[in-house]
């Protein structure tokens, strides 16, 4: 590809990317929706309405008992629930009251219907292997309730939760002389546990600190999604789980609760019709600051990006090497090896990658304590190697079979034929497929959030969950992926032209040859 063509190509790509950004901005404008809707006075008046609840939670159960003839919409996190309440897709959200109390400045248009529908009791959860820890925890909790520490913590964190940005927290120095605990936390619930300036702080982390100080423990804390945390505890990958886990009978069968730490009323949250938008520019400014500036969240995104690059990069490099070897083995030992590879090819064809990665993490490596990053690399490496093998196999087929015969007839061995004659001619059709597989892998790594790895996507979503603002985090993440994809395409195109034998100059072709010494 000539320089001119490459420039033209870059220009067109940038143009398309800008158009996409423009479309997204337009969507933002059209999201400004401030229509005044029905006003609800009490929970009873919600009868027959559309109610948003968090599926699997206690609020879900309570809501179905308290509101008559309601249509329920099930969500997996409160951010989405608030968003749909704001745009009046639902009439009310049923949640513990702290969820909206901490965010009353961000959601001036949402308010609580005062009547409590039920009480939610929460505590730490423990794996089946941490019974000793659980006993100690219960003892400690009793003591702290008695000596007023719990009251102090309650006052500190819950008296004015909307001041969450300023509540002081110093992580304690822990000796760890009696061991290290593996802690799983879903730090997306202000003020129970949340992230500020890259640090996990909150009511429960502070209590954990006190506990560990008392019993001489240190801990390793891994942040993840709520569901991943539940899974992690029920499979004993982690010892303790923190996420103000509400007590339900269902959950009690899978995980072991400590004694109750705290109670919170479950309420209905409705749209009160107040304006919430300060105008497009102000909103964007606020959104930007919340996404990147507040709490140095941009650092989190960089960290997530590095994780994504690590997993993708390692998988691509090791997977390519492994894939090449698979290819050689299939060539040299057809029959059984080919069958095995085809078998795995079909598995990857038919299995959604999310399911594959979860099976790998929770079942194949279920008992192990290897980090999610490491297991992701193993899983993706294997998957990528199968794809590389298929790409090589298909592209070798495009080389006319006579080429192999001609090479053999000259005296090349099968191996030499493959490396020096067939593969160079197959590169033309191999590289585009290879490029596609690389990009596909990059995007596939975005699901590692399901196995408790904080990659770029998960980080973006984390910010969205914490700031309750979707625009900048998601758009930023999308743009980063697009940029990475674009870079990969650019480099593969460069590689294609580099390995194109016809681009060589005569001096390169005749390297090391003196054409003047008359050969005749």
């Amino acid at each position: 590809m000539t320089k001119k063509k490459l420039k033209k190509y870059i220009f067109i790509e940038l143009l398309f990317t800008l158009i996409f950004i423009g479309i997204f901005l337009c969507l933002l404008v059209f999201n400004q929706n401030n229509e005044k809707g029905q006003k609800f006075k009490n929970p009873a008046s919600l009868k027959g309405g559309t109610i948003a609840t968090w599926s699997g939670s206690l609020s879900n159960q309570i809501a179905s008992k308290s509101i008559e003839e309601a249509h329920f919409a099930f969500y997996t996190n409160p951010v989405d629930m608030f968003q749909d309440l704001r745009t009046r897709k639902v009439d009310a959200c049923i949640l513990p009251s702290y969820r909206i109390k901490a965010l009353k400045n961000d959601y001036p248009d949402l308010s609580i219907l005062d009547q409590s529908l039920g009480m939610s009791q929460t505590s730490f959860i423990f794996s089946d292997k941490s019974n000793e820890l659980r006993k100690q925890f219960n003892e400690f909790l009793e003591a702290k309730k008695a000596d007023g520490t719990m009251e102090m913590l309650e006052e500190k964190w819950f008296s004015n939760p909307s001041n969450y940005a300023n509540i002081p927290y110093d992580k304690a120095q822990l000796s760890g002389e009696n061991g290290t605990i593996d802690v799983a936390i879903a730090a997306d619930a202000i003020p129970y546990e949340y992230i500020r300036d890259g640090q996990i702080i909150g009511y429960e982390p502070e209590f954990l600190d006190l506990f560990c100080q008392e019993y001489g423990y240190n801990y390793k804390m891994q942040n993840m999604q709520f569901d991943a945390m539940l899974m992690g505890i029920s499979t004993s990958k982690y010892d303790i789980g923190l996420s103000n886990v509400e007590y339900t009978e269902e959950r009690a069968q899978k995980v072991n609760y400590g004694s109750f730490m705290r109670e919170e009323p479950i309420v209905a949250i409705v749209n009160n019709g107040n304006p919430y938008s300060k105008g497009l520019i102000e909103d964007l400014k606020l959104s930007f600051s919340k996404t990147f500036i507040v709490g140095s969240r941009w650092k989190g995104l960089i960290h997530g990006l590095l994780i994504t690059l690590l997993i993708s990069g390692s998988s691509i490099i090791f997977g390519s090497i492994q894939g090449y070897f698979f290819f050689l083995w299939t060539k040299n030992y057809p029959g059984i090896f080919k069958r095995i590879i085809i078998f795995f090819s079909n598995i990857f064809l038919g299995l959604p990658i999310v399911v594959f990665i979860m099976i790998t993490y929770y079942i194949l490596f279920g008992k192990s304590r290897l980090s999610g990053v490491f297991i992701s690399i193993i899983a993706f490496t294997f998957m990528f190697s199968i794809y590389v093998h298929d790409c090589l196999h298909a592209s070798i087929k495009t080389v006319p079979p006579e080429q192999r015969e001609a090479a053999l007839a000259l005296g090349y061995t099968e191996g030499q034929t493959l490396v020096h004659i067939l593969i160079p001619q197959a590169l033309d059709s191999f590289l585009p497929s290879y490029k596609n597989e690389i990009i596909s892998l990059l995007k596939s790594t975005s699901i590692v959030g399901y196995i408790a790895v904080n990659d770029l996507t998960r980080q973006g979503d984390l910010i969205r969950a914490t700031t309750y603002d979707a625009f900048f985090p998601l758009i930023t993440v999308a743009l980063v992926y697009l940029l990475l994809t674009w870079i990969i395409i650019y480099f593969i195109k460069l590689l294609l032209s580099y390995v194109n034998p016809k681009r060589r100059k005569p001096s390169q072709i005749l390297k090391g040859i003196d054409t003047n010494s008359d050969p005749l």
Partner: protein
Amino acid sequence: MNNTHESTKEIVLKVSNLTKAYGEVKPINQMSFEVYKNDAIAIIGPSGTGKSTLLRMINMLNTPTSGQIFLGDEEVTKEGYPLNKLRLKVGMVFQSYTLFSHMTVIENCMDAQIKLLKRSRQEAYARAYDELNKVHMTDHILKYPDQLSGGQKQRVAIARALAMDPEILLLDEPTSALDPTMVSEVETVIKSLSKRGITMLIVTHEMRLARAASNRVFFLTGGSIYEEGSPEKIFDNPEREATKNFVKRIKKKEWLIKNKDFDFLTSISEIDSFCRDADISIKTNKAIQSIFEETVTQIMLPQIKGQPLIKFTLEYSGQSQLLRLMIEYAGPKLRITDTDNEMAKNLLLYYSDIIEVEPTSDDLNDGFNNAFELKLKKSL
């Protein structure tokens, strides 16, 4: 041409009781022969009789079902014989030239030398340049195969094989895939190879090539060498029946037209093939095709009511270079030279003179009561 003092020559290749069987079918059955140094053997025969299979067994691209092949003193059919070593000594040129598309012409000829014979780049270059010079391709050494014509590619393929200094060269229908205009350049090259004394086996159906380049001809049919001898013997004085028939087939051909919409195009292309095989000049070839078209389709068929019965015969004698065209037909006499179709008549008379003759009398000619010969004008 090469001399044939067999008794004093060394044996380069010996084939002994070679058989290739695909189930019941045996394209090669208990074949034995010896190839002497400087021999250039043309292998001819009907299609599908295993000519290519035989060639491919010599460098073991196909494995024999039974029998032995000896290259010099070594038995190459022995189990465990390193095939890539064998192929360094046996060069092969394919019908479809098969140059490596990712290398330039010079690299095609150098690469195997460097990688397999461990020659230095300078040595390999010199040897490749030498061979390319002999096939007159030195102006194209930095070109890629897709920039060359078929004839040029085949010449490079020959140079590539020879740069490896093989003991014997195998050519599998080297001109079959070529445009007629390019056939002669490759034939010239092959002729020069035999002049150089390169030991080779050429599978071909081009009589002209066989005559010009070989000192021995094998006629293959029924799985074995049916008859062998010098080109003069095989083509001009074949001894055995099948040989005679085969050779005749490339020297006399008849076309029978029994209905008005006969396959005209196939007949024209058969005339073309016949003329090329018989080394008839292109001008004459085209003239014969025109004569056929004008006479049969333009002049005769329009005049015939009902089903026609016409026989067109083309006969060629290589020795005397005589060409004979004859048309016989049944039914009432037709107007040929005094036809109404002015244009067709003029074209016909441009190329030939019409002479009325007696229809040939043998059993096949029942029903023909009219005949005439077309004598090609000398000016052609």
